[in-house]
Each structure stands twice: as C-alpha cells, then as structure tokens.
C-alpha cells in the first residue's frame, strides 16, 4: 500500500465529515426550534472536529507540509473525496434529517469497524468519533421516525426527501479499488459486510417511520473519486473565500 493510497482513503473520511459539518453550519439560527438549533450546531461541531483530526493525519501521511487548513481551504472540488450524499443541499429540515440519518448510520458502522483498524491512528480517531456518531444517529433516527410517522405533511416531505437522496447511498456501500485495498490491509472494513448491517439498521428505522424503502438506484455517484455534483463547487466557493482572497496570512 502506498502512502498516496492511504492519503486518499483518509481524505474520504475527512472530507465527508467536513462537507457534512459545513452543511449543518448553514442551519444555525434557522432551525424549527431553539433546541434544534443547538442540536444541529452540536453535530456540526463534532463533524468539524472529526475533519480536523482526519485532515491533520492525511497531511502527515502525504508528507508535503499541508496542514488541516491548507487541505480544507486550498483544494478545488476535483480533489475533494467526500461521498456525494454529504454535499447535497439542506433543503427543508426533513431533507437535512434524512441525509444526516443515512450518513450517521454509515459513519457509525464505519467508525465501529475502524476501531479495530491496523492503522493505530485511525483506530484512535475512530474510537472518539464512534461515541459522537452514536449520539448523532440517535438524534437523526428519532427525527426520521417523528417526521415519517407524524402528520400527513411531514410524511410527504420526508418521503420525497428519501426518494431524492436514496440514489446517493450506493456509493457509501459499493467498494472501489481503494476500498478493497484498504480492506485487504486491515485498515478499513469490508464494505460488503458493512452494507448488510447498514441496510438492516436503516430498514428498521424506515419501517418504524412508516416510510417505504425506495428501489435500488442505478447510477453510481463518484464523489469519493473526485467526481462531484454541481453543489460542491458552490459550497467550496463560500467556504474557501477568505483564505483564497488573502493568501498566506494567519487568522
């Protein structure tokens, strides 16, 4: 395994947390209730924290002196390795919650498995992240059920969100060459096994939420290989504006 390979793998984890955290940051001050403002901010904070640890590690693996900020603020979209689901726009609260739930369920399986990674640093980061993610999933799953099994309007909104976002889930669970390489080295889990657990967990919550699981998607998104949707470019333009306008300074 080359350091380039591991670098890219860690970026996938880091960028997913970063992009998802950035999306949640957009909600602060605009949530349905003050308590939800705090809850979403809490999750955003956890995700940014994960991103910082993972980006720092990625920079060390790369060995070119790039720190967490150089990686976050000075790469363009094709160099980002987050899964495409993370960059999808917030939409309404139901869409945000559903996106969160699908990713929380995935991150939980992933981090739990990474606790046993042959890479000690990843295992350490995962051990911390797993506790946070358990709470995120509790929160998002609870809301999926409330909205799915709430009023007619809430059910319709979250069912629509599910139909739109489901097609991005295949990327989480379909291994490519890099995933296979990491699994073979014991760095990362086998996505095939992860898929079984994810589908079970997600299925149970959707059922409780009286939501119908959409049919399997036919298009495979490639965010983790740097081929994103149009949304990422806009997000990065906003996020990276200051360091790119005033290069080389300390904030």
């Amino acid at each position, binding site marked *: 395994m080359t350091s380039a390979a591991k670098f890219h793998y860690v970026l996938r984890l880091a960028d997913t947390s970063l992009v998802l955290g950035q999306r949640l940051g957009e909600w602060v001050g605009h949530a349905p209730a003050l308590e939800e403002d705090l809850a979403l901010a809490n999750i955003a904070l956890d995700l940014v924290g994960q991103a910082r640890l993972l980006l720092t590690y990625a920079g060390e693996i790369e060995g070119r002196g790039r720190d967490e900020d150089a990686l976050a603020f000075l790469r363009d979209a094709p160099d980002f390795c987050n899964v495409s689901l993370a960059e999808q726009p917030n939409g309404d609260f139901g869409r945000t919650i559903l996106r969160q739930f699908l990713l929380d369920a995935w991150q939980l399986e992933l981090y739990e498995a990474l606790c046993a990674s042959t890479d000690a640093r990843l295992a350490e980061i995962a051990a911390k992240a797993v506790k946070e993610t358990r709470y995120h999933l509790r929160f998002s799953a609870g809301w999926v059920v409330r*909205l799915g099994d709430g009023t007619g309007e809430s059910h319709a909104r979250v069912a629509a969100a599910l139909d739109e976002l489901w097609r991005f889930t295949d990327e989480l669970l379909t291994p490519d060459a890099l995933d296979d390489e990491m699994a073979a080295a014991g760095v990362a889990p086998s996505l095939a096994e992860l898929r079984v657990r994810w589908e079970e967990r997600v299925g149970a919550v959707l059922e409780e939420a009286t939501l119908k699981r959409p049919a399997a998607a036919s298009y495979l998104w490639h965010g983790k290989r740097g081929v994103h949707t149009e949304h990422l470019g806009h997000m990065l333009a906003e996020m990276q504006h200051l360091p790119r306008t005033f290069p080389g300074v300390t904030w």
Partner: protein
Amino acid sequence: MYTQALDSPTPSGEGRAGSAGDEAALERRFDERVERDEKIEPKDWMPEAYRQTLVRQISQHAHSEIVGMLPEGNWITRAPSLRRKAVLIAKVQDEGGHGMYLYSAAETLGVERAELLEQLLDGRAKYSSIFNYPTLTWADVGAIGWLVDGAAIMNQIPICRCSYGPYARAMVRICKEESFHQRQGFEIMLALARGSEEQRAMAQDALNRWWWPSIMMFGPSDATSTHTAQSMKWRIKRFTNDELRQKFVDVTVPQAEFLGLTIPDPALRWDETSQHYLTGPIDWSEFKAVVQGNGPCNRERVQARRQAHEDGRWVREAAAAHAAKHRSRS
C-alpha cells in the same frame, strides 16, 4: 443593557385580591426580604409591577441572545480556518443556550415561551439594539466578541446577585460560559492587528463601525432614564447605565491601545481628576432610531427568525402529532 427598554414605563399592576391593608403588608414584607438580599422564588408573593418588569427584562435578554445568533452565525460557513469555524459554532451554540436558560427563567413567572416568541416575531418585543447592525467582514466577528460580549459581561455579573432566584441562577451559568466568548473575539482581533496591511485595515474598519453601537448598548444616560430607581430598589438592576458604560470604556480603551487600533472618537481623553476615560458626545438619535426599528438590519433580523419559525411549523406539529399518537397507543 440587553434591557434598554427597562426605562420605558412599567404599568402599575394589580396585586392579589385582598384588602389594601393586606396588600401593603405583603409589599412591606417583600421589600424587607429584598433589602436583606433574600432571593425571591417563583411561587413567592411579589408586586405585579415587579413581576412584569422581570418578564420584560428577562425576555428582552433572551430575545437578544437568540437574535444575536444571526450576525455571528452569518460567518460560520466562511470562517477562515477550521479552528475559527469550530470556536464560532460553539459560541453561537452557547448563545442559543443562554436564550434557553433565560426563556426558562421567564417561564417561571407564569408566561409561556410561545407567547414571548410571538411578541418577538411580530415586532412587539424589544431586544438589544446592537444586533441590528450587519456583520460585513470577518473582523466584525472579532469586534462583536471583544466589544459586545465585553459589554454584556459587564452588565451580567451584577445581575448574578439580582433578587429573583431563577434569573440570578441563569446569569451565574451564563457568566461562567461568557468568558470564552470575549477572549475568542479579542484573539481574532489580535491576529488581524498583527497580520497583513489588509487584515489590520479590516480590524480598524470593524472597530470604527462597532465602537459607538457598543457603548450605546448600556442604554440612555442616567439623566434621561427615569425608571432606574425602582429597578435598583428591587435589586433587579444593581448599577446605573452610566456607571456600567464608564467601567466598560475604562477597561476597553487600553485593550484597543494594545491592539494598536484607534478608537473612532477624536474627543476621547483620559481625565486625571476623575481617573476615567471620557468619551465624546454620544449620538442618541441613532440609538433611538435603531431601538424604534429603523436600524440597518432590524427588519432582516426579525424576518429571519420569523422565517425560521414559519418554515419549522410543520416540523413542530409533526413531533407533537407523533407524541400524541404514541401516548394514545401505550
């Protein structure tokens, strides 16, 4: 401070039914308790005017915290480093939390949060004027932490000793959390002041725009503020507007000097006799305009909260419906 409209007339309330003699005795006993620095708790007898003054003061403070999430929340997605982003999210989260502690304290006085929110959203309730100013650059985030939170701390510490128990306890909690807010802001300003030409200019520009609104936060001068006396007697307010304002100026001027920034007041001077920094004249017409709803962002701020509330209606209803379904099932 977050309670500037305290100085508007408090309607004289009706006490509990009973003879005038009973009423007078209860009031006398209440006054004695307050004078002994005893805490008044939710179920204790209190003059109606005291209760109403507190509801207004506490709710204004709560509204200020949650509206205050907006000018700073505006920069979360554009924070220039991950550390700054994380700290800013945490700060704004704290502000939301402070709003919650305060609404919670207000609710002990028999008013519902839904009612208070309605007053805010339809423009009837006041909140601190400072949040009606826009955050135009990253330096504004620093200026708010340094100046606005600095002013807030000055006002809040004495309220930790106010006569009403739930309010005092909420303030103790808030004060503990507030100290990191001001340091965060000052640290941002320091990094800018020590940075490039453009960063220094950014910091100076922010100070130029936030200085006067910050010192106006303490409310009108004592000479024009007619209801301070009653609030001081009831130990809701412990220092006058001018006293707090002076304290703030004295503490902040040296901090600006340390940063190498210039306070936008050509008349500012150190007065050897009184041992205070004396400011130039404050433009109270600007303050009045902002308090009356004609500041730069008044409409946008309330509109944003109204939008969030409306957009979230289906969510709140869904949660209530779900809970009801399950209550009837079990």
